[in-house]
């Protein structure tokens, strides 16, 4: 039992992260268009288009409302794509994990390195979105506080959680396409009902209670507090929620990957 709870993680986990970084440095220019452009389209398209017909109780412009939501939701997609399809490909098709664990790198190092890398992809996506948001701020007053810079470390923390979630799903699927179940049943509901596109405070009480269990909702809440410059105790509670859930998911993914890969 104790053995199952002790993680065999060393500094070598960084080497796993570095391997992924090396690959990223080959392709980042080709791949940057999507994480840069998609949030921009959503912010302008929904923010301005839908914004013309939406009136929020808070009196906020709709484009202001969805900006922190985009800062929470799109980095999540970046992380999930990496720790889902990307990691599945490295694990099952390319056998990169098998190659690495034949060296002094342990399986726990590999998985931890993948979690760190997934979170890094979230931060990279966050940086793009932050640049877009700052560029648009003179026109629509999107960013109201220098606290917005804390969006990046929060993205990293949230990335650790989403990467652990996606890797946990990856540890169970038998093909790349099976990850669609995880995306449809877990990620999509969070994305649409997690407080990104409409305020949950105006929803029925049941929906509000259920949304408390959605990881993305807590990330959205934190990013809103940072972008508007009004963090408080509730923000700390959200951070605590994420830390606890991340720790649990990380333990679970180490266990599940060992179950799958160590025979």
């Amino acid at each position, binding site marked *: 039992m104790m053995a199952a709870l002790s993680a065999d993680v*060393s500094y*070598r986990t960084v*080497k796993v992260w*570095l*391997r992924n970084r*090396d*690959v990223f440095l*080959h392709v980042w220019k080709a791949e940057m268009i999507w994480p840069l452009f998609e949030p921009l389209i959503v912010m302008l398209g929904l923010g301005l288009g839908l914004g013309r017909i939406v009136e929020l109780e808070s009196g906020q412009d709709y484009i202001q409302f969805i900006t922190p939501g985009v800062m929470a939701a799109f980095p999540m997609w970046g992380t999930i794509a990496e720790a889902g399809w990307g990691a599945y490909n490295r694990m099952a098709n*390319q*056998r*990169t994990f*098998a*190659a*690495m*664990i*034949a*060296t*002094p*790198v*342990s399986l726990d190092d590999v998985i931890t390195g993948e979690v760190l890398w997934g979170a890094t992809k979230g931060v990279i996506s966050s940086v793009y979105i932050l640049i877009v948001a700052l560029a648009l701020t003179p026109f629509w007053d999107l960013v109201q506080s220098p606290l917005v810079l804390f969006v990046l470390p929060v993205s990293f923390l949230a990335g650790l959680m989403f990467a652990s979630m996606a890797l946990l799903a990856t540890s169970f699927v038998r093909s790349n396409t099976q990850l669609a179940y995880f995306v449809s049943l877990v990620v999509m509901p969070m994305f649409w009902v997690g407080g990104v596109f409409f305020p949950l405070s105006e929803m029925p009480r049941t929906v509000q209670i259920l949304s408390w269990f959605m990881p993305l909702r807590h990330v959205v809440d934190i990013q809103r507090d940072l972008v508007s410059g009004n963090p408080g105790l509730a923000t700390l509670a959200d951070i605590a929620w994420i830390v606890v859930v991340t720790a649990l998911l990380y333990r679970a993914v180490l266990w599940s990957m060992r179950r799958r890969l*160590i*025979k």
Partner: protein
Amino acid sequence: MQSQVLIEARSLSKRFGSLVAVDGIDFEVVRGECFGFLGPNGAGKTSTIRMIGCVSPVGGGTLRVLGMDPAHDARRIKARLGVVPQEDNLDPDLTVLENLLAYARYFDVPKADAIERAWEVLDLLALREKAAEQIENLSGGMKRRLTVARALVSQPELLILDEPTTGLDPQARQLFWQKLRQLKRDGLTMLLTTHYMEEAAQLCDRVIIMDQSRIIARGTPAELIERIIGEQVVEVRFDGLDGASARAAVRQLAQGFEVEETEDVVFVYEQDGRRLSDLDLNAAHELSSDVLLRRATLEDVFLRLTGRGLIE
């Protein structure tokens, strides 16, 4: 003075659910030798070397690798091994050179040393021109050589190769063997699994033959041939239909010798010191147009022990 025994297995075993993959085997591998694991598919070779490589937990018995216990010293053991797995797992997202550098990094080889070492192994395996190539553009033989280069980049004491030439064409295989012989001359200890008997005969100092999870024979290739087959073998072939009576006649002719039959061949082996030169080959020629007297090989030993029928 470092220990001469690099691997020591006692009653080593492994099971997967109800399947017994390795059933209490004993062997030792000593420094400087090339040690071969022979056996048909499913004999337990790969399971055994995965335990040695510390990627699969020891199921039962004891295993010491480089004097250490895989259960407690996996990282320290793996730091001194070079592994060439059965299936290619080169990193297709990186170039040839980057594959070597990323691998050296897993072993904590400092960057400058890694670069120097990477070029050395590329030269050694005749891959220098391919350094900037993507993995998908390499031929099968080049991929296998690069996998060996990758295993050597950390300067291992022991090189483990799991069916290294499966799927290679004859030229690629000859070149591959030549490179391995060179490594052996340089003093590298090698552990090799294969089901190509010629590969074992070309490379291995000592072999064990595994079948159905156990070791069924061990020795040098020459010893095994001499002990189990003898010097020569006669093959009498039949094309299908004309068989029955002619076969009976061949059996009659070969009385006093060991005889083995498959669907279209009768094999005659030496027995109790009786030489095949005593066999009346002229009479055999009367019975079949295809009679061959040849030197015995490790393949005969293997098939003799594991059966000539298809194992599935």
